[in-house]
Protein backbone atom coordinates (compact mmCIF):
# COMPACT_ATOMS: atom_id res chain seq x y z
CA UNK A 1 0.00 0.00 0.00
CA UNK A 2 2.40 2.64 -1.24
CA UNK A 3 -0.53 4.98 -1.54
CA UNK A 4 -1.09 5.39 2.17
CA UNK A 5 0.27 8.54 3.69
CA UNK A 6 0.98 10.20 0.37
CA UNK A 7 -2.24 12.16 0.48
CA UNK A 8 -3.30 11.07 -2.97
CA UNK A 9 -5.78 8.53 -1.68
CA UNK A 10 -8.00 10.86 0.28
CA UNK A 11 -10.45 11.62 -2.49
CA UNK A 12 -11.69 10.16 -5.73
CA UNK A 13 -11.14 13.54 -7.33
CA UNK A 14 -7.36 13.43 -6.97
CA UNK A 15 -4.96 11.55 -9.21
CA UNK A 16 -1.71 10.18 -7.88
CA UNK A 17 1.38 11.45 -9.77
CA UNK A 18 1.50 8.20 -11.74
CA UNK A 19 -2.10 8.62 -12.88
CA UNK A 20 -4.06 6.36 -10.58
CA UNK A 21 -7.13 7.02 -8.50
CA UNK A 22 -6.56 5.21 -5.27
CA UNK A 23 -10.13 5.48 -4.02
CA UNK A 24 -11.22 3.41 -7.01
CA UNK A 25 -8.55 0.85 -6.27
CA UNK A 26 -9.71 0.64 -2.67
CA UNK A 27 -13.23 0.06 -3.93
CA UNK A 28 -11.84 -2.90 -5.87
CA UNK A 29 -10.43 -4.21 -2.60
CA UNK A 30 -13.93 -4.17 -1.15
CA UNK A 31 -15.02 -6.29 -4.10
CA UNK A 32 -12.18 -8.74 -3.56
CA UNK A 33 -13.22 -9.33 0.04
CA UNK A 34 -16.63 -10.65 -0.87
CA UNK A 35 -17.75 -14.11 -1.91
CA UNK A 36 -17.31 -15.07 -5.54
CA UNK A 37 -20.02 -14.35 -8.08
CA UNK A 38 -19.94 -15.79 -11.57
CA UNK A 39 -22.03 -15.41 -14.70
CA UNK A 40 -22.17 -17.70 -17.72
CA UNK A 41 -23.49 -16.70 -21.11
CA UNK A 42 -24.30 -19.83 -23.07
CA UNK A 43 -26.10 -20.96 -26.19
CA UNK A 44 -29.67 -20.37 -25.09
CA UNK A 45 -29.48 -18.34 -21.91
CA UNK A 46 -27.51 -17.03 -18.97
CA UNK A 47 -26.78 -18.31 -15.47
CA UNK A 48 -25.72 -16.35 -12.39
CA UNK A 49 -24.21 -18.05 -9.35
CA UNK A 50 -23.04 -16.52 -6.09
CA UNK A 51 -21.07 -17.87 -3.17
CA UNK A 52 -22.82 -16.08 -0.34
CA UNK A 53 -21.05 -16.25 3.00
CA UNK A 54 -23.31 -16.93 5.94
CA UNK A 55 -21.57 -15.11 8.75
CA UNK A 56 -24.04 -16.08 11.43
CA UNK A 57 -26.03 -19.22 12.14
CA UNK A 58 -28.82 -16.96 13.37
CA UNK A 59 -29.55 -15.73 9.87
CA UNK A 60 -32.66 -17.03 8.16
CA UNK A 61 -31.67 -19.24 5.21
CA UNK A 62 -31.94 -17.27 1.99
CA UNK A 63 -31.54 -13.91 3.73
CA UNK A 64 -29.37 -11.12 2.28
CA UNK A 65 -29.73 -12.12 -1.31
CA UNK A 66 -26.96 -11.10 -3.65
CA UNK A 67 -28.70 -12.05 -6.85
CA UNK A 68 -31.46 -9.63 -7.71
CA UNK A 69 -34.03 -9.16 -10.41
CA UNK A 70 -33.75 -5.89 -12.31
CA UNK A 71 -36.44 -6.40 -14.90
CA UNK A 72 -38.47 -9.39 -16.03
CA UNK A 73 -35.64 -10.63 -18.22
CA UNK A 74 -32.58 -9.17 -16.49
CA UNK A 75 -30.86 -10.31 -13.33
CA UNK A 76 -27.80 -9.04 -11.55
CA UNK A 77 -25.29 -10.42 -9.09
CA UNK A 78 -22.98 -8.24 -7.06
CA UNK A 79 -19.74 -8.75 -5.19
CA UNK A 80 -18.68 -6.23 -2.60
CA UNK A 81 -20.70 -4.14 -0.20
CA UNK A 82 -24.18 -5.61 0.01
CA UNK A 83 -25.88 -2.28 0.61
CA UNK A 84 -24.20 -0.74 -2.43
CA UNK A 85 -25.56 -3.65 -4.45
CA UNK A 86 -29.09 -2.87 -3.29
CA UNK A 87 -28.72 0.78 -4.18
CA UNK A 88 -27.34 0.00 -7.63
CA UNK A 89 -30.08 -2.53 -8.32
CA UNK A 90 -32.67 0.12 -7.52
CA UNK A 91 -30.97 2.44 -9.95
CA UNK A 92 -30.99 -0.32 -12.57
CA UNK A 93 -34.73 -0.87 -12.04
CA UNK A 94 -35.34 2.85 -12.49
CA UNK A 95 -33.39 2.78 -15.74
CA UNK A 96 -35.49 -0.15 -16.96
CA UNK A 97 -38.73 1.58 -16.00
CA UNK A 98 -37.51 4.65 -17.84
CA UNK A 99 -36.92 2.69 -21.04
CA UNK A 100 -40.21 0.87 -20.78
CA UNK A 101 -42.15 4.08 -20.23
CA UNK A 102 -40.40 5.93 -23.02
CA UNK A 103 -40.28 3.27 -25.71
CA UNK A 104 -42.72 0.53 -24.63
CA UNK A 105 -40.11 -2.14 -25.09
CA UNK A 106 -37.91 -4.27 -22.95
CA UNK A 107 -34.54 -2.65 -22.34
CA UNK A 108 -31.48 -4.51 -23.56
CA UNK A 109 -28.96 -5.72 -21.02
CA UNK A 110 -26.29 -3.75 -22.84
CA UNK A 111 -28.16 -0.48 -22.46
CA UNK A 112 -28.83 -0.97 -18.76
CA UNK A 113 -25.21 -1.99 -18.17
CA UNK A 114 -23.97 1.08 -20.00
CA UNK A 115 -26.24 3.33 -17.95
CA UNK A 116 -25.09 1.71 -14.71
CA UNK A 117 -21.49 2.16 -15.82
CA UNK A 118 -22.09 5.89 -16.35
CA UNK A 119 -23.71 6.00 -12.93
CA UNK A 120 -20.76 4.24 -11.30
CA UNK A 121 -18.33 6.48 -13.14
CA UNK A 122 -19.96 9.61 -11.76
CA UNK A 123 -18.97 8.40 -8.30
CA UNK A 124 -15.31 8.51 -9.31
CA UNK A 125 -15.36 12.24 -10.08
CA UNK A 126 -16.05 14.06 -6.85
CA UNK A 127 -14.41 14.34 -3.48
CA UNK A 128 -17.79 14.41 -1.79
CA UNK A 129 -18.69 10.82 -2.70
CA UNK A 130 -17.04 7.43 -2.61
CA UNK A 131 -17.01 5.03 -5.55
CA UNK A 132 -19.28 2.01 -5.30
CA UNK A 133 -17.67 -0.87 -3.46
CA UNK A 134 -19.15 -3.44 -5.81
CA UNK A 135 -18.67 -5.11 -9.14
CA UNK A 136 -21.92 -6.02 -10.83
CA UNK A 137 -22.67 -8.85 -13.23
CA UNK A 138 -25.73 -8.12 -15.34
CA UNK A 139 -27.21 -11.02 -17.24
CA UNK A 140 -30.30 -11.49 -19.31
CA UNK A 141 -31.84 -12.54 -22.56
CA UNK A 142 -33.16 -9.73 -24.74
CA UNK A 143 -33.89 -9.16 -28.41
CA UNK A 144 -30.18 -9.48 -29.16
CA UNK A 145 -30.00 -12.87 -27.45
CA UNK A 146 -28.24 -13.84 -24.21
CA UNK A 147 -25.97 -11.11 -22.84
CA UNK A 148 -23.62 -10.78 -19.92
CA UNK A 149 -21.91 -7.60 -18.74
CA UNK A 150 -19.77 -6.60 -15.81
CA UNK A 151 -19.71 -3.09 -14.34
CA UNK A 152 -16.75 -2.25 -12.14
CA UNK A 153 -16.27 0.48 -9.51
CA UNK A 154 -14.25 2.53 -12.00
CA UNK A 155 -17.24 2.72 -14.32
CA UNK A 156 -15.83 0.27 -16.81
CA UNK A 157 -18.44 -1.91 -18.51
CA UNK A 158 -17.43 -4.96 -20.53
CA UNK A 159 -19.34 -7.83 -22.09
CA UNK A 160 -18.27 -11.42 -21.46
CA UNK A 161 -19.00 -15.03 -22.29
CA UNK A 162 -18.10 -15.93 -18.73
CA UNK A 163 -17.45 -13.51 -15.88
CA UNK A 164 -16.18 -13.89 -12.34
CA UNK A 165 -15.89 -11.29 -9.59
CA UNK A 166 -15.05 -11.42 -5.89
CA UNK A 167 -12.64 -13.44 -3.81
CA UNK A 168 -12.22 -16.53 -5.98
CA UNK A 169 -12.39 -14.82 -9.35
CA UNK A 170 -8.95 -15.92 -10.56
CA UNK A 171 -9.62 -19.61 -10.09
CA UNK A 172 -13.16 -19.21 -11.34
CA UNK A 173 -11.92 -17.49 -14.49
CA UNK A 174 -9.50 -20.31 -15.30
CA UNK A 175 -12.32 -22.79 -14.78
CA UNK A 176 -14.64 -20.77 -17.01
CA UNK A 177 -12.00 -20.65 -19.69
CA UNK A 178 -11.96 -24.45 -19.82
CA UNK A 179 -15.64 -24.53 -20.76
CA UNK A 180 -17.00 -24.21 -24.26
CA UNK A 181 -19.55 -21.68 -23.16
CA UNK A 182 -21.12 -21.01 -26.54
CA UNK A 183 -21.97 -24.71 -26.90
CA UNK A 184 -23.43 -25.37 -23.45
CA UNK A 185 -27.14 -25.44 -22.69
CA UNK A 186 -28.38 -23.39 -19.77
CA UNK A 187 -29.00 -26.53 -17.74
CA UNK A 188 -25.43 -27.71 -18.25
CA UNK A 189 -24.23 -24.21 -17.45
CA UNK A 190 -26.12 -24.29 -14.14
CA UNK A 191 -24.30 -27.53 -13.23
CA UNK A 192 -20.94 -26.02 -14.16
CA UNK A 193 -21.69 -22.81 -12.28
CA UNK A 194 -22.45 -24.73 -9.09
CA UNK A 195 -19.31 -26.81 -9.53
CA UNK A 196 -17.14 -23.72 -9.96
CA UNK A 197 -18.60 -21.99 -6.92
CA UNK A 198 -17.97 -25.06 -4.78
CA UNK A 199 -14.47 -25.36 -6.23
CA UNK A 200 -13.41 -21.79 -5.51
CA UNK A 201 -14.82 -21.83 -2.01
CA UNK A 202 -12.03 -21.81 0.53
CA UNK A 203 -13.07 -23.97 3.48
CA UNK A 204 -10.23 -22.77 5.67
CA UNK A 205 -11.23 -19.14 5.71
CA UNK A 206 -15.00 -19.04 5.41
CA UNK A 207 -16.86 -22.08 6.61
CA UNK A 208 -20.49 -21.57 5.83
CA UNK A 209 -21.84 -20.41 2.51
CA UNK A 210 -25.02 -20.60 0.54
CA UNK A 211 -25.11 -21.16 -3.20
CA UNK A 212 -27.43 -18.68 -4.87
CA UNK A 213 -28.24 -19.37 -8.47
CA UNK A 214 -30.59 -17.82 -11.02
CA UNK A 215 -31.04 -18.07 -14.75
CA UNK A 216 -32.79 -16.74 -17.81
CA UNK A 217 -33.56 -19.20 -20.61
CA UNK A 218 -36.34 -20.58 -22.76
CA UNK A 219 -37.29 -22.90 -19.89
CA UNK A 220 -38.18 -19.84 -17.80
CA UNK A 221 -40.01 -18.16 -20.70
CA UNK A 222 -37.27 -15.55 -20.85
CA UNK A 223 -37.83 -14.51 -17.23
CA UNK A 224 -35.09 -14.06 -14.68
CA UNK A 225 -35.93 -16.49 -11.87
CA UNK A 226 -34.05 -18.48 -9.25
CA UNK A 227 -33.00 -21.92 -10.45
CA UNK A 228 -35.70 -24.38 -9.32
CA UNK A 229 -35.02 -26.06 -5.97
CA UNK A 230 -34.67 -29.58 -7.38
CA UNK A 231 -32.17 -28.52 -10.03
CA UNK A 232 -30.25 -26.49 -7.47
CA UNK A 233 -30.10 -29.49 -5.13
CA UNK A 234 -28.90 -31.72 -7.97
CA UNK A 235 -26.29 -29.17 -9.03
CA UNK A 236 -25.04 -28.88 -5.44
CA UNK A 237 -24.87 -32.66 -5.07
CA UNK A 238 -22.89 -33.04 -8.29
CA UNK A 239 -20.65 -30.11 -7.30
CA UNK A 240 -19.79 -31.78 -4.00
CA UNK A 241 -19.12 -35.06 -5.81
CA UNK A 242 -16.85 -33.35 -8.30
CA UNK A 243 -15.02 -31.66 -5.44
CA UNK A 244 -14.33 -35.01 -3.72
CA UNK A 245 -13.03 -36.52 -6.95
CA UNK A 246 -10.93 -33.42 -7.48
CA UNK A 247 -9.26 -33.76 -4.10
Amino acid sequence: MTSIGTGYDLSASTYSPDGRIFQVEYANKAVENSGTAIGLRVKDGVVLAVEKFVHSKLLVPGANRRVQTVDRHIGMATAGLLADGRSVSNRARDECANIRNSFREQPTVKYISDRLALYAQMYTLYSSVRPFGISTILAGVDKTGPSLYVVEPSGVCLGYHGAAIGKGRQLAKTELEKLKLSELTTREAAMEAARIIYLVHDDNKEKEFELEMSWVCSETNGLHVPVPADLLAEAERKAKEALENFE
Partner: protein
Amino acid sequence: MDHFPANWGRPRNDAIDLYATHLLHPRPNNRAKDAFADSVQRTQQPIVTGTSVLAIKFKDGIMMAADNLASYGSLARFKDVQRLQAFGDYTVIGASGDMSDFQFIQRLLDDIAVAEIAAQDGHDLGPVEIHEYMSQVMYGRRSKLDPLWNSLIIGGFKDGKRFLSYVDLLGTTYTASTIATGYGGYIAQPLLRKAVEGYEDVLTAEQARKILEDSMRVLFYRDARSLNKYQLATITAAGVQISDSLHLETSWDFAEGIRGYGAQTQ
Protein backbone atom coordinates in the same frame (compact mmCIF):
# COMPACT_ATOMS: atom_id res chain seq x y z
CA MET B 1 -26.12 36.68 -14.48
CA ASP B 2 -27.11 34.18 -17.09
CA HIS B 3 -25.19 31.03 -16.28
CA PHE B 4 -25.96 29.21 -19.52
CA PRO B 5 -23.16 29.83 -22.04
CA ALA B 6 -25.54 28.89 -24.87
CA ASN B 7 -27.51 32.04 -24.13
CA TRP B 8 -24.61 34.43 -24.14
CA GLY B 9 -24.72 36.97 -26.91
CA ARG B 10 -28.22 35.98 -27.96
CA PRO B 11 -31.57 37.67 -27.71
CA ARG B 12 -33.18 37.19 -24.33
CA ASN B 13 -36.49 36.03 -25.71
CA ASP B 14 -38.49 35.40 -28.85
CA ALA B 15 -40.22 38.80 -28.73
CA ILE B 16 -36.99 40.47 -29.83
CA ASP B 17 -36.26 37.94 -32.57
CA LEU B 18 -39.74 37.49 -34.02
CA TYR B 19 -38.66 35.56 -37.08
CA ALA B 20 -36.32 33.24 -35.21
CA THR B 21 -33.20 34.26 -37.08
CA HIS B 22 -31.17 33.00 -34.15
CA LEU B 23 -31.31 29.36 -33.17
CA LEU B 24 -32.63 29.67 -29.63
CA HIS B 25 -32.33 26.63 -27.44
CA PRO B 26 -34.98 26.61 -24.77
CA ARG B 27 -33.40 27.55 -21.46
CA PRO B 28 -34.95 28.21 -18.11
CA ASN B 29 -35.09 31.95 -18.68
CA ASN B 30 -36.09 32.12 -22.33
CA ARG B 31 -38.50 29.26 -22.91
CA ALA B 32 -41.89 30.03 -24.35
CA LYS B 33 -44.62 30.83 -21.88
CA ASP B 34 -47.03 27.94 -21.52
CA ALA B 35 -50.19 28.98 -23.31
CA PHE B 36 -52.22 27.16 -20.68
CA ALA B 37 -50.30 28.36 -17.67
CA ASP B 38 -53.23 30.36 -16.36
CA SER B 39 -56.04 27.99 -17.23
CA VAL B 40 -55.52 24.29 -17.36
CA GLN B 41 -58.09 22.01 -18.91
CA ARG B 42 -58.46 18.40 -17.82
CA THR B 43 -60.32 15.55 -19.46
CA GLN B 44 -63.91 16.65 -20.00
CA GLN B 45 -65.13 13.64 -21.92
CA PRO B 46 -63.79 10.37 -23.24
CA ILE B 47 -62.64 10.34 -26.88
CA VAL B 48 -62.13 6.82 -28.18
CA THR B 49 -64.46 4.65 -26.16
CA GLY B 50 -65.29 1.04 -25.50
CA THR B 51 -68.80 0.03 -24.55
CA SER B 52 -70.10 -2.51 -22.04
CA VAL B 53 -68.12 -5.15 -20.20
CA LEU B 54 -70.05 -8.04 -18.64
CA ALA B 55 -68.86 -10.34 -15.89
CA ILE B 56 -70.45 -13.10 -13.85
CA LYS B 57 -69.49 -15.61 -11.19
CA PHE B 58 -69.91 -19.28 -11.96
CA LYS B 59 -69.11 -22.57 -10.28
CA ASP B 60 -65.39 -22.61 -11.07
CA GLY B 61 -64.57 -18.92 -11.07
CA ILE B 62 -65.31 -15.81 -13.07
CA MET B 63 -66.27 -15.31 -16.69
CA MET B 64 -66.13 -11.96 -18.48
CA ALA B 65 -67.08 -10.66 -21.91
CA ALA B 66 -66.37 -7.51 -23.89
CA ASP B 67 -66.61 -6.74 -27.58
CA ASN B 68 -63.67 -5.65 -29.75
CA LEU B 69 -64.92 -2.20 -30.68
CA ALA B 70 -63.40 1.16 -29.85
CA SER B 71 -65.74 3.92 -31.05
CA TYR B 72 -64.81 7.48 -31.97
CA GLY B 73 -68.03 9.16 -31.04
CA SER B 74 -70.65 7.23 -32.97
CA LEU B 75 -68.11 6.07 -35.54
CA ALA B 76 -67.08 2.41 -35.19
CA ARG B 77 -63.42 3.38 -35.44
CA PHE B 78 -61.34 0.36 -34.29
CA LYS B 79 -62.75 -3.14 -34.55
CA ASP B 80 -59.85 -5.17 -33.21
CA VAL B 81 -59.34 -3.74 -29.75
CA GLN B 82 -58.87 -6.10 -26.86
CA ARG B 83 -60.69 -4.73 -23.83
CA LEU B 84 -60.08 -7.69 -21.54
CA GLN B 85 -56.52 -7.70 -20.26
CA ALA B 86 -54.92 -10.41 -18.18
CA PHE B 87 -52.78 -9.15 -15.35
CA GLY B 88 -50.53 -11.72 -13.69
CA ASP B 89 -51.73 -15.29 -13.35
CA TYR B 90 -54.94 -14.64 -11.46
CA THR B 91 -56.64 -11.52 -12.73
CA VAL B 92 -58.39 -10.05 -15.74
CA ILE B 93 -59.31 -6.39 -16.08
CA GLY B 94 -62.08 -5.39 -18.45
CA ALA B 95 -62.47 -1.75 -19.37
CA SER B 96 -65.16 0.38 -20.87
CA GLY B 97 -64.80 4.10 -21.41
CA ASP B 98 -61.77 5.90 -22.73
CA MET B 99 -59.37 3.47 -24.38
CA SER B 100 -56.31 5.71 -24.06
CA ASP B 101 -56.93 5.95 -20.33
CA PHE B 102 -57.19 2.16 -20.28
CA GLN B 103 -53.85 1.90 -22.03
CA PHE B 104 -52.41 4.20 -19.40
CA ILE B 105 -53.85 1.94 -16.70
CA GLN B 106 -52.21 -1.04 -18.37
CA ARG B 107 -48.89 0.77 -18.18
CA LEU B 108 -49.41 1.49 -14.50
CA LEU B 109 -50.18 -2.14 -13.83
CA ASP B 110 -47.22 -3.31 -15.89
CA ASP B 111 -44.95 -1.12 -13.79
CA ILE B 112 -46.22 -2.54 -10.51
CA ALA B 113 -45.97 -6.04 -11.97
CA VAL B 114 -42.28 -5.52 -12.64
CA ALA B 115 -41.76 -3.98 -9.20
CA GLU B 116 -43.47 -6.99 -7.72
CA ILE B 117 -41.24 -9.41 -9.65
CA ALA B 118 -38.16 -7.48 -8.59
CA ALA B 119 -39.16 -7.67 -4.92
CA GLN B 120 -38.85 -11.48 -5.05
CA ASP B 121 -40.62 -11.77 -1.72
CA GLY B 122 -42.60 -14.87 -2.55
CA HIS B 123 -45.86 -12.93 -2.81
CA ASP B 124 -47.72 -11.97 -5.92
CA LEU B 125 -50.63 -9.72 -6.59
CA GLY B 126 -54.08 -11.23 -6.73
CA PRO B 127 -57.36 -9.71 -7.86
CA VAL B 128 -58.10 -8.27 -4.41
CA GLU B 129 -54.86 -6.30 -4.37
CA ILE B 130 -55.31 -5.10 -7.93
CA HIS B 131 -58.84 -3.98 -7.18
CA GLU B 132 -57.61 -2.04 -4.15
CA TYR B 133 -54.81 -0.45 -6.17
CA MET B 134 -57.13 0.53 -9.01
CA SER B 135 -59.72 1.96 -6.64
CA GLN B 136 -57.05 4.17 -5.05
CA VAL B 137 -55.75 5.28 -8.46
CA MET B 138 -59.23 6.06 -9.80
CA TYR B 139 -60.33 7.91 -6.68
CA GLY B 140 -57.03 9.77 -6.54
CA ARG B 141 -57.39 10.95 -10.09
CA ARG B 142 -60.98 12.06 -9.68
CA SER B 143 -59.94 13.99 -6.56
CA LYS B 144 -57.45 15.86 -8.74
CA LEU B 145 -60.40 16.66 -11.03
CA ASP B 146 -58.56 14.69 -13.71
CA PRO B 147 -60.28 11.32 -13.79
CA LEU B 148 -59.32 8.27 -15.77
CA TRP B 149 -62.51 7.96 -17.80
CA ASN B 150 -63.20 4.27 -17.35
CA SER B 151 -65.47 1.77 -15.72
CA LEU B 152 -63.36 -1.23 -14.85
CA ILE B 153 -64.35 -4.74 -13.95
CA ILE B 154 -61.77 -6.78 -12.12
CA GLY B 155 -62.27 -10.52 -12.07
CA GLY B 156 -59.95 -13.07 -10.60
CA PHE B 157 -59.37 -16.34 -8.87
CA LYS B 158 -56.68 -16.87 -6.28
CA ASP B 159 -56.16 -19.18 -3.30
CA GLY B 160 -59.41 -21.00 -4.04
CA LYS B 161 -61.48 -17.80 -3.96
CA ARG B 162 -63.11 -16.06 -6.86
CA PHE B 163 -63.36 -12.30 -6.87
CA LEU B 164 -65.38 -9.91 -8.96
CA SER B 165 -65.47 -6.16 -8.50
CA TYR B 166 -66.16 -2.82 -10.13
CA VAL B 167 -64.26 0.47 -10.07
CA ASP B 168 -65.21 3.57 -12.03
CA LEU B 169 -63.97 7.06 -12.85
CA LEU B 170 -65.43 8.47 -9.63
CA GLY B 171 -63.67 5.90 -7.49
CA THR B 172 -66.92 4.07 -6.78
CA THR B 173 -66.35 0.42 -5.96
CA TYR B 174 -68.52 -2.59 -5.29
CA THR B 175 -68.50 -6.33 -5.60
CA ALA B 176 -71.38 -8.45 -6.85
CA SER B 177 -71.98 -11.78 -8.50
CA THR B 178 -72.93 -10.09 -11.76
CA ILE B 179 -71.47 -6.81 -12.98
CA ALA B 180 -72.08 -4.89 -16.19
CA THR B 181 -70.64 -1.53 -17.19
CA GLY B 182 -71.97 1.11 -19.54
CA TYR B 183 -75.07 0.36 -21.57
CA GLY B 184 -74.88 -3.21 -20.31
CA GLY B 185 -75.76 -1.85 -16.88
CA TYR B 186 -79.23 -1.11 -18.23
CA ILE B 187 -79.73 -3.86 -20.80
CA ALA B 188 -77.69 -6.85 -19.68
CA GLN B 189 -77.60 -6.52 -15.92
CA PRO B 190 -81.25 -7.59 -15.35
CA LEU B 191 -80.70 -10.59 -17.61
CA LEU B 192 -77.50 -11.55 -15.85
CA ARG B 193 -79.05 -11.19 -12.40
CA LYS B 194 -81.95 -13.36 -13.34
CA ALA B 195 -79.69 -16.04 -14.74
CA VAL B 196 -76.89 -15.97 -12.17
CA GLU B 197 -78.04 -14.79 -8.74
CA GLY B 198 -78.57 -17.77 -6.50
CA TYR B 199 -76.89 -20.09 -8.99
CA GLU B 200 -73.30 -18.86 -8.61
CA ASP B 201 -72.16 -22.22 -7.26
CA VAL B 202 -74.15 -24.30 -9.72
CA LEU B 203 -73.54 -22.76 -13.12
CA THR B 204 -71.07 -24.65 -15.28
CA ALA B 205 -68.59 -22.93 -17.56
CA GLU B 206 -70.74 -23.89 -20.55
CA GLN B 207 -73.86 -22.36 -18.99
CA ALA B 208 -71.97 -19.23 -18.00
CA ARG B 209 -70.66 -18.89 -21.52
CA LYS B 210 -74.22 -19.21 -22.87
CA ILE B 211 -75.54 -16.55 -20.50
CA LEU B 212 -72.83 -14.10 -21.53
CA GLU B 213 -73.22 -14.85 -25.21
CA ASP B 214 -76.97 -14.26 -25.04
CA SER B 215 -76.45 -11.00 -23.16
CA MET B 216 -73.84 -9.85 -25.65
CA ARG B 217 -76.29 -10.62 -28.44
CA VAL B 218 -79.04 -8.53 -26.82
CA LEU B 219 -76.52 -5.74 -26.36
CA PHE B 220 -75.51 -5.92 -30.00
CA TYR B 221 -79.18 -5.62 -31.00
CA ARG B 222 -79.81 -2.67 -28.69
CA ASP B 223 -76.51 -0.81 -28.19
CA ALA B 224 -75.52 1.26 -31.22
CA ARG B 225 -71.89 1.40 -29.98
CA SER B 226 -71.42 -2.35 -29.86
CA LEU B 227 -69.99 -4.96 -32.21
CA ASN B 228 -70.80 -8.58 -33.03
CA LYS B 229 -67.19 -9.53 -32.38
CA TYR B 230 -66.27 -10.18 -28.76
CA GLN B 231 -63.95 -12.03 -26.44
CA LEU B 232 -64.53 -14.16 -23.38
CA ALA B 233 -62.21 -14.37 -20.40
CA THR B 234 -62.39 -17.30 -18.03
CA ILE B 235 -60.56 -17.17 -14.73
CA THR B 236 -60.49 -20.38 -12.72
CA ALA B 237 -58.13 -22.30 -10.46
CA ALA B 238 -56.35 -23.31 -13.67
CA GLY B 239 -55.49 -19.68 -14.41
CA VAL B 240 -56.54 -17.05 -16.90
CA GLN B 241 -57.78 -17.89 -20.34
CA ILE B 242 -58.83 -15.21 -22.83
CA SER B 243 -60.50 -16.50 -25.97
CA ASP B 244 -59.82 -15.43 -29.52
CA SER B 245 -62.41 -13.10 -31.01
CA LEU B 246 -65.80 -14.78 -31.26
CA HIS B 247 -68.54 -13.96 -33.71
CA LEU B 248 -72.11 -13.33 -32.53
CA GLU B 249 -74.78 -15.05 -34.60
CA THR B 250 -77.66 -12.66 -35.08
CA SER B 251 -80.90 -12.75 -36.98
CA TRP B 252 -82.51 -9.58 -38.29
CA ASP B 253 -85.61 -11.20 -39.83
CA PHE B 254 -87.86 -9.44 -37.35
CA ALA B 255 -86.81 -6.09 -38.79
CA GLU B 256 -89.15 -6.58 -41.73
CA GLY B 257 -92.13 -6.56 -39.39
CA ILE B 258 -91.21 -3.35 -37.66
CA ARG B 259 -93.48 -0.45 -38.54
CA GLY B 260 -93.40 3.17 -37.53
CA TYR B 261 -90.05 4.46 -38.81
CA GLY B 262 -87.70 3.99 -41.73
CA ALA B 263 -88.42 3.72 -45.41
CA GLN B 264 -91.73 1.90 -45.32
CA THR B 265 -94.84 4.05 -45.37
CA GLN B 266 -97.29 1.63 -43.83
